[in-house]
């Protein structure tokens, strides 16, 4: 990725009594975040165009009667901003009480998705689990969509539209939309159908940006009841040449899910259906754990490693003697670890002296 040169700071504003320089185009939220202010948000995703729906990021600006949404308001020279006055914090608490009142539940397993704990964390921070503002629930869970990847549990949806926006702005699929108005607003697909019939490519970005777990990673959720803590290991997705950074989620010694890395330089939180959901082969019952050799009977039989390797070496040698080194070609698997891919090319290049090595993931 080519980093853009950061323009010089051109003006100054005051934030909670401190003068701060900013560059034109920055919002109040940008400046506040840089100053390590923990301004709460629910509809914000730094990769998306600021939307201004949740209103949690409101701040007071001197000379403006009502608080403004800091995520959509540009910083201007001489602006005097206060990010967490008593009044502002009270509004945030009331907003969170209102949000908490519209859901079936507000506790979800972290395996539902990368951002799934955002609402829960804010409810804890503002201590607002008090049952105020009781009333009917918004959003209706889709129980007819039986796709194996994305849970559509809209009973927990707070209409932040991050899924709609990530699908349009990041993935370019425009598969997700919002129907109706007001409290009846419902996240759905074209003609209120199922994802399979829409433009969805099952990239999973909607799941990973959902701040409540209304959209859930069905594959990872299978491990919710497994014992152990979720651990994350940073690696690079082996499926193709883009080089998306991912965190592999494990519980004890079991791979339970994949999440995109928001700071991955190649993907910035994006993945495709394979990188996101196609990891079952790792622990699949059908996976080969011992080499197989075809016998006289035409069937494959399990043999020990030495027998198999000897047989393979003989085969390679014969080809080499009869047709020369360039008759050898290697194709490594995208489902093998990077270390194996490296070893494979070393084996072909150094072992046989040919450059005829490729990988099925070379996209």
């Amino acid at each position, binding site marked *: 990725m080519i980093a853009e040169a950061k323009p010089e700071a051109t003006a100054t504003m005051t934030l909670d009594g401190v003068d701060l320089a900013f560059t034109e185009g920055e919002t109040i939220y940008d400046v506040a975040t840089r100053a390590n202010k923990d301004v709460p948000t629910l509809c914000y995703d730094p990769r998306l165009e600021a939307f201004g729906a949740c*209103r949690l990021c409101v701040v007071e600006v001197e000379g403006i009667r009502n608080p403004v949404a800091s995520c959509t308001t*540009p910083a201007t020279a001489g602006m005097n901003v206060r990010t967490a006055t008593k009044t502002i914090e009270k509004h945030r608490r009331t907003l969170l009480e209102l949000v908490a009142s519209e859901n079936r539940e507000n506790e979800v397993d972290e395996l539902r998705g990368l951002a799934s704990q955002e609402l829960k964390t804010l409810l804890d921070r503002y201590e607002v689990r008090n049952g105020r503002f009781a009333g009917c629930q918004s959003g209706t869970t889709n129980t007819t969509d039986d796709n194996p990847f994305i849970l559509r549990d809209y009973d927990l949806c707070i209409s932040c*539209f991050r899924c709609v926006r990530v699908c349009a702005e990041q993935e370019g699929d425009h598969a997700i939309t*919002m*129907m109706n*108005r007001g409290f009846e607003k419902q996240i759905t697909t074209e003609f209120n159908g199922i994802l399979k019939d829409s433009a969805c490519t099952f990239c999973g970005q909607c799941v990973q940006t959902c701040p409540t777990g209304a959209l859930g990673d069905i594959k990872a959720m299978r491990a919710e009841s497994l014992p152990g803590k979720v651990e994350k290991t940073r690696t690079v997705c082996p499926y193709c040449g883009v080089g998306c950074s991912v965190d592999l989620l494990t519980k004890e010694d079991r791979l339970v899910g994949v999440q995109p890395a928001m700071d991955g330089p190649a993907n910035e939180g994006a993945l495709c259906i394979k990188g996101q959901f196609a990891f079952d082969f790792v622990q699949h019952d059908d996976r080969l754990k011992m080499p197989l050799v075809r016998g006289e009977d035409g069937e494959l039989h399990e043999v020990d490693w030495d027998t198999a390797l000897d047989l393979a070496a003989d085969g390679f040698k014969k080809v080499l003697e009869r047709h020369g080194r360039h008759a050898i070609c290697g194709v490594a698997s995208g489902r093998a670890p990077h270390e194996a891919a490296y070893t494979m090319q070393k084996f072909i290049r150094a072992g046989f002296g040919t450059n005829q090595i490729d990988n099925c993931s070379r996209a």
Partner: protein
Amino acid sequence: MPTNDELIACWQDEEAPLLPLLHALHDRDGFLNEQDIRAVAEGLNIPIAEVFGTVTFYHHFAREAPGQSAPRVCTGPVCRLLGSPDLVKALDGATPMACAGRCDDAVPVLQGHEIRVGQTVDTLEARPSPLPPPNPGGIEECVFAHIREPGRATLDGYQRTGGYEALKQAREMSREDLLALITDSQLAGRGGAGFPTGKKWEMVEQADGEPKSIVCNADEGEPGCFKDRAILDYEPHAVIEGMAIAAHATGATKGFIYLRYEYPDSFKIVERAMAESAELIGDSFQLYLRRGGGAYICGEEGSLLNSLEGKHPFPRNRPPYPVTHGYDDLPTVVNNVETLASVPPIVAKGPEWYRGLGLGEHAGTKLVSVSGDIRRPGNFEVPFGLPLLTLLNDWCGGAEDGRGIQAVTMAGLSGGFLAGDDLDVTLDEPSIKAKGSFLGAAGIMVFDDTRDMVEVAHCAMEFFAEESCGKCFPCRIGTQRLTERLNGAAGPDDEAAWLQEVRDIGQVMMATSACGLGIAAPNITESLVKYFPEQVTAHLKTAHQSGIKQ
């Protein structure tokens, strides 16, 4: 009947094509089916999911039969007083619709492109909307000065008293002089926000980017407001002339009239007026008429512009403002019908004349729509500064015999209620704001002393909940929760706790909502609690006893 392809070919290269194309298909079939929506998406190169979501946003786009052919009955606040919910039941296949702007001649029933009015099935008839009555105060008018002359909506009728002379005059002036004239008149936005018109035009004139547009906001959706309807039906050329003058002042070359769906008669009248005046206006200013799909929020300028552009009609984040980033993200004047119709007389007679129409220090006039429990409802052009009680009692004849005025709404519904001693106020923004309300678009609905104000407040909040666009959290959830507290469906039984919840919701909505809908809606509950605490207490007792809570 035209095919989808023919209709798409007809609209796809036009300005602001989505709404008219959807209407063309909807008019043809009576509803928009899946194939229609797919065809529109492909034809206009918009994602299908987006077109689908946008279609579901509007009230009047049906997706299945009987769709457009089924009657829709107004159940706005005034029509409810006249028993319109019974008319919904009595009319075969009828469904309710939000206030359709016929409060002075209720109850309107919309079916296809026809409006019929009447309070019972047998008395429903199609008739022209009421003309404003002659000014009861005998006071000189600006917008209504000639509106009662026969044939006024035609070009001949309009030109009989100097119509389009102001445009000629304006076109002979420099932009600078014209802008100065409008600024000097102190004309301000008559849709309710009151932004100085001259300043707005000047900002557009100075903004970078072309082509610039003039958008006439004729999406008069505020319950209890029907003043723009009177202008559009009887004085459409004044609006067109006003827009052409604005175009000359700002350098705009395009104009749009965004008309609410529920005014089909006005659509035809304006369409004809546009055709008649096209030659006179000339090629330098192209005018387009666009019909909404039924959505109160599209009266908010950001939503209106999104709707016009074929986007999901959410309000836009501000800044930037339409003066720099309006239609197609280019400099745009968005003015209300009344504001634009005031322009030609101001140009013709001068700013001093216009300013002088107001009482005392107030400049100019305001159209006010009065309806509800009042003897003579209608549209009135009042000088700013006129006492409210003069309007209600002297001009409109007060309440029926033996009844008193219990409360009136301000700004349609958005200003909440005024009652008791606070009715003793003059009609101008500073005075009404001092009472915790605002004049806004100046719809005044009257409720006499037989009315249950909690029920009136409930209907009002239900309207805001149904019309909330659903974007910002405080409005989306707040209007719903307030509605539930007013109808007893949810909320605390204990009065102190109830009041605390209602107040907290109101405060957060007023302070943090993204547009005027959410900011204004709690005026209803705030003023209810302020003026009618004993009715609130009685409501909570009844709700508690009847156990209607879910």
